[in-house]
C-alpha cells in the first residue's frame, strides 16, 4: 500500500504505459524498437498484477508469482527475439519491418 | 434399374469405357455407340411414354423415389411428362450429331468426348429429376464442363470467353440457389415437412410474400442461361470461342435448361409470383427478342450472328412463358425444341465452313454454294427454317407463341406481341443478308475452289438434325398434342 495513493491512480499510470507501448508497437519501424514496446506493454500488465494483489488481496501472493513468471517468460522471449533479429540481420542485412514483408499475401 | 435412370447411367458408362480407349478412332467409336444407344433409348421412351400415358393420368409418369440425403429430405426423385420426353429426345439427337461433327477432333479426343458426355449426363439428369436439389446438382454438372470444353478446345480468346461464360452462369446459379432454398424453406407453409420434391411443393400454398421475393431470383437464375436480356452477353463470346460440337450442345440443349427450369420450377411452384412479376419480365423478354435480332444484323462473325439470333429466339421462349397462356407455353416448348435443332444445325454448318475456309468473317466468304453445294443448300434451308418458314419447326413454334400471346386481352401485352411479331422481319433481314453474302454472290477468294466436299459423317450429323426439323414442321400435331396435355396441369396454377 502506498500511503495516500489509491488503486485508481496506479491503474491510470499502468494504462497510460500500456497504451504508450501499443502506440510504439504499431508505429515503430524497427524490429528492436518493437521488441521494446512489447516490454513496455508487458511491464504495464505486470504492475497491474502486483498492484491488484497488493490492494485487494494482500493475504495472497498469486499476483506476485504471476509477475515472476511473466518476467521469466519475457526474458526468454527477449533472448529468442534478439537471436532471431541477429540471424535476420545476417541474412538480409536489415532489421527494418519493411524488409521483412516477404510473408504477405 | 428403371428406364429413366438409364439416361444418366449410359453416359456414365460411356465415360468409363472412354477412359480405357486409346486415340481418336477408339474414342469416337465408343462415344458414337454410346450416343446411339442413348438415342435409341430416347426414342423408346417416347413410345413407352405414349403407352404409359394412356393408362396413367398422373402429372408425371415413370416416377421413382430414392432417399439421397435424409437429414434435409433430399431425394433422388425422377419422372417425366411429355415435355421432358421431348427434350430428352432432343438432347439425344444433338449429342449424337455433336459426336459426328467432332469426328475429326485433333487435340485430346478422349478428354473431349468425356467432357462432352459429362455435360450430356448433367442435362439428362436435369430433365428427369423432380427434386429441386437433385435438379440443381445436375444443372451444375452440366454447366461446369463448359469451362473445360471452351477453355481447352476453343478458338480465339478462349480463356476469356470460358471465364466469362462460367462466371456469369455461376453467378446466375448462386441467385438460383437462393431461390431454390427460398422455395425449400417455404415448403412447409401448409404445416408439412420441408421438402425439395417439386410435386409436393406444388401442392403447398407458398405465401404470396415469399413468392414475390423468390420468383425473380429463380427466374433470373434460370433466365441467364436462357440468354435473357440484359444477361445475354456471355453467349456471343462463349459461342464464338467454343468448338463446334460444344456450341451445338450448348445452344441446342444447355440453353434450354433455362426455359425448362423456369417452366418447371419458377412457374409451377411460384405461380402467384409469376403473375405478380410477369409484366416486368415480359418487357425484358420482348426487348431481348427485338434487340437480339437487331444485334445480329450488324455482326460480321458467323457465330456471333447465330449467338445473337439465339438471344432473339430464346427471348421468344421467355416471352411466351411470361404470357402465362397455354398456347404460348406450348409454343415456348416447341420453340425450345425447334431452336435447339436449328441452332445446332447452324453451328454444325458454321463449323464445317470454318473447318474448310478457316474464317468465320462474312466479308471474307462468298459464293460458297458453288464450291460446297451440299453444305450450301443445307445452309440455305436452315436459314429459311430459322426465319420461320412454314414446313419447318420454327414456324410451328412461333405461330403458337404469337397466337397464344394474342389471346390475352390486355392491350399492353398485345402491343408487345406485335413488337415481338415484328422480329420475324428483322430475322429475315439478317438471315438473308447472311445467306446472300456467304452462300450466294460471287466467290470472294479463288484459293478455296478445291475445298473438300461434305463427308459421310458430316452428312449424317446434318440429316440427323434436319429430319426432325422438317418432321416437326410438316406434322406438328402429335408433338403439339403431347405437349399440350402435359402443360395442362402446369397452367392451372396460374389461371
Amino acid at each position, binding site marked *: 500500500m502506498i500511503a495516500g495513493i489509491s488503486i*485508481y491512480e496506479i491503474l491510470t499510470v499502468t494504462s497510460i504505459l500500456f497504451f504508450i507501448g501499443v502506440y510504439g508497437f504499431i508505429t515503430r519501424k524497427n524490429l528492436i524498437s518493437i521488441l521494446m514496446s512489447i516490454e513496455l506493454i508487458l511491464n504495464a500488465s505486470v504492475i497491474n498484477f*502486483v498492484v491488484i494483489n497488493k490492494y485487494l488481496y494482500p493475504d495472497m501472493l498469486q499476483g506476485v508469482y504471476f509477475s515472476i*513468471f511473466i518476467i521469466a517468460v*519475457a526474458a526468454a522471449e527477449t533472448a529468442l527475439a*534478439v*537471436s532471431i533479429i541477429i540471424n535476420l*540481420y545476417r541474412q538480409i542485412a536489415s532489421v527494418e519491418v519493411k524488409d521483412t514483408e516477404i510473408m504477405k499475401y | 434399374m428403371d428406364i429413366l435412370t438409364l439416361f444418366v447411367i449410359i453416359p456414365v458408362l460411356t465415360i468409363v469405357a472412354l477412359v480405357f480407349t486409346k486415340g481418336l478412332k477408339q474414342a469416337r467409336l465408343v462415344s458414337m455407340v454410346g450416343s446411339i444407344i442413348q438415342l435409341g433409348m430416347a426414342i423408346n421412351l417416347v413410345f413407352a411414354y405414349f403407352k404409359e400415358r394412356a393408362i396413367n393420368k398422373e402429372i408425371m409418369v415413370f416416377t421413382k423415389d430414392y432417399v439421397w440425403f435424409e437429414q434435409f429430405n433430399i431425394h433422388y426423385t425422377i419422372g417425366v411428362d411429355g415435355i421432358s420426353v421431348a427434350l430428352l429426345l432432343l438432347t439425344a439427337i444433338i449429342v449424337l450429331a455433336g459426336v459426328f461433327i467432332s469426328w475429326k477432333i485433333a487435340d485430346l479426343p478422349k478428354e473431349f468426348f468425356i467432357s462432352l458426355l459429362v455435360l450430356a449426363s448433367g442435362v439428362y439428369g436435369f430433365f428427369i429429376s423432380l427434386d429441386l436439389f437433385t435438379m440443381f446438382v445436375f444443372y451444375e454438372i452440366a454447366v461446369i464442363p463448359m469451362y473445360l470444353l471452351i477453355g481447352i478446345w476453343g478458338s480465339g480468346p478462349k480463356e476469356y470467353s470460358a471465364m466469362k461464360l462460367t462466371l456469369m452462369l455461376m453467378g446466375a446459379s448462386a441467385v438460383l440457389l437462393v431461390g431454390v432454398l427460398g422455395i425449400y424453406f417455404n415448403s412447409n407453409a401448409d404445416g408439412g415437412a420441408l421438402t425439395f420434391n417439386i410435386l409436393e411443393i406444388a401442392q403447398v400454398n407458398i405465401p404470396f410474400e415469399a413468392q414475390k421475393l423468390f420468383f425473380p431470383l429463380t427466374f433470373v437464375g434460370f433466365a441467364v442461361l436462357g440468354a435473357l436480356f440484359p444477361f445475354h452477353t456471355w453467349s456471343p463470346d462463349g459461342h464464338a470461342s467454343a468448338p463446334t460440337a460444344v456450341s451445338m450442345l450448348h445452344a441446342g440443349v444447355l440453353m434450354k435448361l433455362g426455359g425448362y427450369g423456369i417452366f418447371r420450377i419458377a412457374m409451377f411452384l411460384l405461380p402467384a409470383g409469376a403473375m405478380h412479376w410477369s409484366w416486368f419480365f415480359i418487357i425484358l423478354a420482348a426487348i431481348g427478342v427485338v434487340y437480339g435480332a437487331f444485334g445480329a444484323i450488324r455482326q460480321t462473325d458467323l457465330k456471333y450472328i447465330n449467338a445473337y439470333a439465339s438471344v432473339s429466339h430464346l427471348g421468344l421462349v421467355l416471352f411466351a412463358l411470361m404470357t402465362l397462356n397455354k398456347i404460348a407455353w406450348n409454343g415456348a416448348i416447341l420453340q425450345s425444341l425447334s431452336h435447339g435443332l436449328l441452332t445446332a444445325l447452324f453451328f454444325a454448318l458454321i463449323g464445317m465452313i470454318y473447318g474448310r475456309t478457316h474464317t468465320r468473317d462474312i466479308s471474307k466468304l462468298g459464293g460458297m454454294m458453288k464450291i460446297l453445294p451440299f453444305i450450301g443448300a443445307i445452309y440455305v434451308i436452315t436459314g429459311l427454317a430459322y426465319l420461320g418458314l412454314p414446313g419447318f419447326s420454327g414456324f410451328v413454334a412461333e405461330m403458337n407463341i404469337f397466337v397464344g400471346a394474342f389471346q390475352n386481352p390486355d392491350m399492353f401485352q398485345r402491343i408487345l406481341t406485335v413488337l415481338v411479331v415484328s422480329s420475324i422481319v428483322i430475322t429475315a433481314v439478317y438471315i438473308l443478308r447472311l445467306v446472300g453474302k456467304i452462300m450466294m454472290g460471287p466467290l470472294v477468294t479463288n484459293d478455296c475452289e478445291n475445298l473438300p466436299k461434305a463427308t459421310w459423317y458430316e452428312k449424317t450429323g446434318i440429316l440427323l438434325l434436319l429430319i426432325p426439323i422438317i418432321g416437326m414442321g410438316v406434322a406438328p400435331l402429335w408433338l403439339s398434342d403431347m405437349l399440350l396435355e402435359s402443360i395442362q396441369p402446369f397452367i392451372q396454377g396460374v389461371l
Partner: protein
Amino acid sequence: MERIIFYILALIMIVFAIASVSSKKMLRSVIYLLFVLCGIAGLYFLIDYNFLAAIQLTVYAGGIIVLIIFSVVLVHHIEMELELAKRSKQILVGLACLIGLGIFLTTIYSHTFNVVENSITTTAEDIGLGLLSYETGGFILPFEVISILLLASMIGAIVIAKGKKLTDKNEPK
C-alpha cells in the same frame, strides 16, 4: 512523502516511455526504456514488494536491457537515425490509443474496488515457499515448467543466433 515519490515515479515512467517510443535514436530509446523499467522497480519498492523490485532490476534493467543494447550495437551504427511512421499513421494510432485509454479509465473509475487496508510486508522467504510449495495453491509445477521453458528458449536462442553455418550450404554467396 510516499505520495510525492509515487507521482515523481509516475511522471518519470510516462515521460520516458513516451520518449522511448518516439526517439529517433535507437540507443537513446533503449536507455529511456531502462529508466522506465527502473521506475517500475521503484514502484515495487513503494508497495513493499522488495523481492519483486529486485528481480525487476536484475532481470529487466540488468539482463534484458543489456541484451537489447547488444543487439542494437550488433545491427546498428550507434548514431543511426530511425525511420518514423507516417504522420497520418501516428495520429491515427495515437487517436486509437487515446480512445482505448479513455475506455480503460472510464471503466476503471466506474468500478469500485474492494480495497483492503493493510501494511503486510512480503519477504523473499514467503515468495520462495509459495513458489516451491506443492500443497494446494502451490506453484511448484509452473515453476518447473518455466524452468524448462527457459532452458528451451536458451538453447533455441543459441541455435538460432549461430545459425549461419546452416544457411551457408544453401546460400553460397
